[in-house]
């Protein structure tokens, strides 16, 4: 703690408290300081993390806090929060089915629950509940199975009947001819977290512990000799490193290729939408899987919603019209009230879609090079556990038990983690 105070004093990072808020409020908010430094890169570090997104910054935070490794740089090609951590729909949940996934995502949920105290940063964690609606007996069976798997792993889950769903979301179309609402699976501890604040909070915490966050500094190559990584070539020159960690989901194929690796990944795009702000209408996160639509309401009042991925390889950070139509139709089928709202914005983000729909946190064939990739469309909720397990992997060169299933060789071993049972077809996961 004293080291933390020293570093904080050195770099002028102030802790947030009721006192600091009051003092700054009455002094015109003129004395807030930047919450992280903007250093030039040093010639070498113990660890260089490529990718200053949520996962890379969380990794830096946990490397410093849990493993005492602070001689670390995070290199980011743009600015902090410019990638997927600022482009997602902010949902957190741990309602998974398979043993390889459930303990990992539940650990992430627990880290979310303590995140703001851990970071001393308001990330607006809102455990408003995540509700998956169903429409038929077989779907009810599938959700009962999922709920039972969750409870067997100590995760909260409640199977709701039609009237219990009505109490939560009275405005949905319960008697839709094709998809009548028969009930739902509710995870009360799920909800939303302010995505930008997650990036900023992790960045501030890592910086205050001595991590250098270097923005506008793309990695353009790796120096590898005799099968061992020696550092990263960047736009700001060569940075030596004992260990290099890749955390660049969306572009993992391109970055890993610079180290000679080939991955079981296709890049796809997914879109999200936000409407004009309205008074409170929906206080849970609701998903309509059968209709490819999910929705929540932001604290500003806009409905935030999305649907399926675009379905074909893409490096364009935007989508096409058919998915927009599909999402709008899903929204209208589930909650016709949405038809009166105007969409303010839609945008797209890039996904690493793996061949089984599950992520990769593993060593690579290059000594000293570590890989965190393949988050598909679900990376945001995983941010803290991903950083936690990746930091463990980097510090110990051995996988964390919670990420033991996320090995790169699982495809060759036939040990895939296919939540949807779709096979090696990324656009179906």
């Amino acid at each position, binding site marked *: 703690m004293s080291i933390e105070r020293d570093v904080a004093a050195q770099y002028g990072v102030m802790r947030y408290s009721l006192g600091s808020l009051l003092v700054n409020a009455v002094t015109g908010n003129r004395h807030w300081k930047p919450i992280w430094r903007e250093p030039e890169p040093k010639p070498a570090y113990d660890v260089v993390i490529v990718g200053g997104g949520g996962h890379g910054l969380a990794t830096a935070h946990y490397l410093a806090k849990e493993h005492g490794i602070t001689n670390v740089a995070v290199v980011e090609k743009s600015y902090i929060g410019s990638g997927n951590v600022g482009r997602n729909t902010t949902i957190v949940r741990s309602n998974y089915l398979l043993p390889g996934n459930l303990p990992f995502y539940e650990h992430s949920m627990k880290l979310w629950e303590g995140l703001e105290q851990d970071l001393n940063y308001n990330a607006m964690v809102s455990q408003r509940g995540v509700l998956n609606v169903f429409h038929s007996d077989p779907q009810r069976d599938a959700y009962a199975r999922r709920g039972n798997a969750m409870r067997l792993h100590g995760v909260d889950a409640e199977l709701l009947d039609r009237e219990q769903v009505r109490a939560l979301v009275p405005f949905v179309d319960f008697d839709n001819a094709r998809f009548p609402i028969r009930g739902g699976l509710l995870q009360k501890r799920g909800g939303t977290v302010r995505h930008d604040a997650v990036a900023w909070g992790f960045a501030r915490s890592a910086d205050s512990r001595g991590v250098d966050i270097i923005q506008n500094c793309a990695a353009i190559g790796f120096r590898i000799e005799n099968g061992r990584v020696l550092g990263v070539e960047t736009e700001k020159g060569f940075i030596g490193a004992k260990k290099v960690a890749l955390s660049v989901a969306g572009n993992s194929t391109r970055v890993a290729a610079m180290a000679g690796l*080939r*991955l079981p990944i*296709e890049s796809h795009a997914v879109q999200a939408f936000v409407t004009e702000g309205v008074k409170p209408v929906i206080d849970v996160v609701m998903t309509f899987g059968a209709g490819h639509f999910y929705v929540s309401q932001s604290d500003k009042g806009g409905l935030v919603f999305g649907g399926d991925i675009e379905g074909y390889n893409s490096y*364009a950070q935007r989508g096409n019209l058919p998915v927009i139509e599909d999402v709008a139709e899903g929204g209208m089928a589930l909650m016709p009230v949405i038809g009166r709202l105007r969409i303010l914005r839609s945008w797209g983000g890039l996904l690493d879609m793996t061949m089984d729909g599950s992520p990769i946190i593993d060593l690579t064939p290059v000594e000293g090079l570590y890989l965190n990739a393949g988050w598909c469309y679900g990376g945001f909720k995983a941010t803290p556990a991903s950083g936690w397990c990746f930091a463990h992997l980097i510090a110990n060169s051995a996988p964390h038990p919670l990420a033991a299933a996320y090995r790169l060789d699982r*495809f*060759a071993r036939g040990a895939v983690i296919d939540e949807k049972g779709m096979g090696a077809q*990324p656009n179906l996961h």
Partner: protein
Amino acid sequence: MRINCPYCGERALEEFTYRGDATVTRPDSLDAASEPAWVDYVYFRDNPAGRHREHWHHSAGCHAWLVVTRDTRTHEIVAVEFAGKGKLP
């Protein structure tokens, strides 16, 4: 994005179903020795940022399988061919 089917002409994206990378080749052999080739065929992809040769099925049209060459950064379509031997289905 619209795809110019050689049989039907230019049609909207909704008429087509995506299958994926058209450059991977299925190994001939089922020997244990060909297992790495199978793993590569089933799971590993070049995933280029740029021109990508990919299979599309004109599922709401003539049911032809097509090989489309498309830029994954811009969605510009450079070429559309039949996936078979270049003949009409």
